[in-house]
């Protein structure tokens, strides 16, 4: 079980409410996008078409590739031709590619996507974030209803570091300004949910920022070795509990909820796609996603095989 962050509790009721509330948003977004749509493929109703197939892009970490293959599995089952391009890079690289037309569909995360679109975004509640994202998206793009599964950012330290410096929340970090080193993805250095926000919200200043990876071998290796004191990890990473690492609490709600949400180009969004992905979102839980991560990362199953096997077991594909 990954430790949930104190700052982003997600009672199931709120999630389901958000799911329903959010379902109406994409249509709105699509309308505004459809009129000025650059590709000219969309009509005024904002309806795209998945007739010619869909290219799914994924970021450079395991979970995103699993999600991409899950999307592919349910879409294929719905009769859509799909192609998955795994392991492309950061959101900063992927997002323009959806706009540019090389990619049609991305597994995204609410909070991270919102902050990418609007650095000053304050929303942390799922339904509100969904609306804010829809409003902030450029013409031609839309999000579909978000799913149950959530993978949030965690700032974690080893048990020894937590005891040595008396750390239990992000607030505690500020008492050791200039002493601690943080390790994270390069882009976290310039992100609000990262070094920028930790300084603005918690007044934390690190001695050094080390560019590492997304909850991958570099950042975890560095945390184990003591090369970094604080590591940016994913809450769905099973190593957090396995290694006994301490996830620092977020009393000031810096870290937004990170429900999985599909980002899609208007030109490809039709009801077939919407329905298939909504069904997946309603069934895939955080626990299931965490287990899938474990199967691929630890048991070395292929991301596509693990995704298809799970979707079949969940009754999503025949």
């Amino acid at each position, binding site marked *: 079980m990954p430790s949930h962050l104190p700052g982003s509790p997600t009672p199931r009721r709120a999630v389901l409410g958000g799911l329903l509330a959010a379902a109406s948003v994409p249509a709105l977004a699509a309308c505004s996008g459809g009129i000025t749509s650059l590709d000219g493929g969309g009509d005024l109703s904002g309806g795209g078409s998945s007739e010619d197939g869909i290219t799914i892009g994924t970021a450079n970490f395991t979970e995103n590739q699993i999600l991409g293959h899950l999307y592919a599995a349910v879409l294929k089952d719905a009769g859509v031709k799909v192609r998955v391009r795994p392991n492309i*890079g*950061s959101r*900063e*690289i992927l997002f*323009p590619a959806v706009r540019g037309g090389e990619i049609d569909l991305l597994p995204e995360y609410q909070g991270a996507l919102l902050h990418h679109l609007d650095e000053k975004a304050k929303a942390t509640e799922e339904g509100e974030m969904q609306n804010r994202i829809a409003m902030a998206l450029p013409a031609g793009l839309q999000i579909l209803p978000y799913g149950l599964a959530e993978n949030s950012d965690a700032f974690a330290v080893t048990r020894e570091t937590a005891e040595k410096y008396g750390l239990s929340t992000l607030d505690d970090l500020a008492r050791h300004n200039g002493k601690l080193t943080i*390790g994270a*993805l*390069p*882009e976290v*250095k*310039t992100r609000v949910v990262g070094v920028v926000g930790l300084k603005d919200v918690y007044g934390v200043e690190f001695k*050094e*920022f*080390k*560019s*590492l990876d997304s909850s991958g*071998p*570099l950042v975890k*290796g*560095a945390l184990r*070795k003591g*090369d970094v004191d604080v590591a940016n990890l994913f809450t769905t990473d099973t190593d957090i509990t396995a290694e006994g690492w301490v996830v620092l609490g977020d009393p000031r709600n810096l870290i937004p909820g990170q429900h999985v949400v599909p980002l899609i180009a208007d030109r490809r969004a039709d009801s077939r796609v919407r329905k298939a992905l909504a069904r997946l979102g309603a069934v895939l839980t955080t626990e299931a996603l965490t287990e899938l991560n474990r199967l691929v990362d630890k048991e070395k199953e292929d991301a596509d095989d693990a995704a298809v096997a799970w979707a079949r077991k969940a009754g999503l594909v025949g």
Partner: protein
Amino acid sequence: MGELLMDLGAWLTSGDQWSGVDGIANRLGEHLEYSLIATVIAAAIALPTGLLIGHTGRGAFLAINLSSFGRALPTVGLIVLVFLASGLSMTPVYVSLVALAVPSIVTNTYAGMRAVDPETRDAARGQGMRAHQVLLRVEIPLALPLIMTGLRLALVQVVATATIAAYVSFGGLGRYVFDGLAQRDLVQVLGGAVLVAAVALVLDLALAALQRALFVNRPA
């Protein structure tokens, strides 16, 4: 494009950009450190090997084909492989860079030795020189131009490839390229690339100058 170049100018000349851990001065120092250490290690392995093969004529097949093998070896794969085997340290970086540099040096050193006229070699022996004297006083001086070519080639390749250190969390100018990619900050990527190219060219010119100096002093 013009805008990108203006931004590049600003990036390269801003005082902030030069100071601190992530400053150009520090990253430049790290890059030089990685490149020079790797090239020196490679030379320590490759020069004796090339000289030995050239002097004895044994292992010529290896010397000729090693450079082709070295060119074919994918650095990205090698660094990941060594990383997975040995963990988070500079070892994967140095192993990859040395593996890249050794073949160029061995092959060129061997070629230089082979280019020595056999009659010159025989003449030296005829004058009563011992094997090591022939090597030190005749063969190496005559092979020097090609040996230096190998070293220069290796150094340029190592400097350009030391960028990869950033992929496994270390510093050097590659930091700007990899961070700029992740942040989609093209100015940073371009800045890193320009600095790497500049380092490679300056070091290459420095070795060329050294080579000329050595030529002037070589025994007739």
